[in-house]
């Protein structure tokens, strides 16, 4: 039993290390990708092609003064970034990178991931409220409205996959795509999922909670140093999560010829990450009411229709 516990702890630690490295790489990749879209180079001076840039940034952020402004709600202000990071991190405990590489294979894995990632909204709201800053408050409100609304089409868009695989277990879902990935039977579902998930993770063009040009930095406007870095990292962790989930649910997870499963999995995830970055650096940002009506008037009916048709098809088959 103790050995099992130690192994579990080691696995958790490994996931933590993996996430940290991934996030560092994602931030670096985003800066590089955006730079190349914009006929620039991006970080070049620190390490080979700026490879160590993120390490410098991290050390600097840890060294920065950690300001707690005078009139904030100190406890909530303190907890919010931790909650944000933890909820982003928790999803990885059941995310399978290959049939073997998974911390804990849960039968309700999908439900669990959808559940813990939704916790983020709580932390954003807390940060916005506790900061005692109107920009932060607006950002907090926006994030609540946005994330809770997009939760619905998000769940509805993955339900057909669950029906087809007949399980909430992520490994089983991947196994069910042995013959053909679900994206081929559920193309609409995939697009719906990716859109809703991008909104869920506050990715542009849905990044209105921290819309820099409107709300300066939104909910994290008063955060500095290590607390800010938690928000910053959690955003990228979430981005990786939604892409990983998309790869598992629609792209056949780690399945692929020749290469080892983990590599296949990472290739698919990073491809989706690149798509998200591509979208972010191309499109303008939506307005809050347009965002909401887009969710309720377009995404939701489409998701419902998709759900209904998939269900009928499964029954009649």
């Amino acid at each position, binding site marked *: 039993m103790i050995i099992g516990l130690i192994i579990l702890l080691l696995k958790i630690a490994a996931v933590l290390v993996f996430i940290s490295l991934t996030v560092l790489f994602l931030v670096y990749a985003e*800066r590089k990708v955006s*730079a190349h879209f*914009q*006929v*620039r*180079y*991006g*970080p*070049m*001076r*620190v390490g080979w092609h*700026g490879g*160590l*840039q993120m*390490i*410098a*940034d*991290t*050390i*600097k*952020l840890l*060294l*920065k*003064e*950690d*300001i707690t402004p005078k009139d904030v709600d100190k406890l909530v202000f303190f907890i919010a970034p931790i909650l944000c990071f933890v909820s982003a991190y928790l999803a990885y405990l059941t995310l399978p990178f290959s049939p073997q590489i998974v911390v804990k294979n849960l039968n309700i894995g999908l439900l669990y991931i959808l559940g813990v990632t939704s916790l983020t909204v709580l932390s954003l709201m807390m940060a916005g409220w506790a900061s005692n800053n109107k920009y932060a408050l607006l950002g907090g409100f926006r994030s609540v409205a946005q994330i809770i609304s997009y939760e619905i089409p998000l769940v509805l868009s993955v339900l057909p996959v669950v029906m087809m695989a007949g399980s909430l277990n992520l490994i089983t879902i991947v196994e069910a795509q042995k013959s053909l990935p679900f994206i081929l039977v559920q193309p609409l579902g995939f697009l719906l999922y990716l859109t809703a998930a991008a909104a869920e993770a506050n990715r542009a063009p849905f990044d209105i909670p921290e819309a*820099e040009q409107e709300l*300066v*930095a939104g909910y*994290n*406007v*008063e*955060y*500095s*140093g290590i607390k*800010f870095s938690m928000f910053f990292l959690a955003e990228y962790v979430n981005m990786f999560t939604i892409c990983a989930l998309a790869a598992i649910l629609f792209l056949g997870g780690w399945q692929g010829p020749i290469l080892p499963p983990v590599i296949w999995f990472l290739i698919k995830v990073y491809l989706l990450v690149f798509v998200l970055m591509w979208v972010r650096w191309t499109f303008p940002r939506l307005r809050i009411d347009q965002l909401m009506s887009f969710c309720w008037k377009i995404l939701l009916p489409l998701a419902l229709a998709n759900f209904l048709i998939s269900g009928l098809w499964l029954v009649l088959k």
Partner: protein
Amino acid sequence: MDLAQDVFRYVEKMPGGNLILTTTDSLFNWAKANSLWYLLFGLKCCAIEMMAAGASRYDLDRLGLMFRASPRQTDLMIVAGTVTAKMAPRIRTLWEQMAEPRYVIAMGSCAITGGAFFYDSYAAIKGVDEVIPVDVYIPGCPPRPEALIEGILKLQEKIKKESLTKR
């Protein structure tokens, strides 16, 4: 910062401890120097050159400079333009909102001395250093983006000479 300073105060007292201190110093200084996030804040003409320096041809991002709109998350404030009597208290507030370690670059003659508005102007302040401490001065009206980059390199040199125990 505070915790780190406490720890290293003891380290320095130990014989041979200076070695550790210098290595951490150089690591920390390397990180600080290469990750100067600057405040998205411009006053006048120089701000346009600052934008140009961030854009494709000059690309401050190469040096690890990234802009943030919130002063809490920035390390560097580039005062680009004339400081006026009405603006001076706001600049002071912004500087106070920034988290330590923070640096200030006075960009352009106006921010250094008032520049063209040194004589006869009833509203311009004669240099931003009347309001906040300045680390690097970049002359020019406005300075070219190359000059701004040179100033940033000078600031990086300055940061690399810092020490955790004495600042």
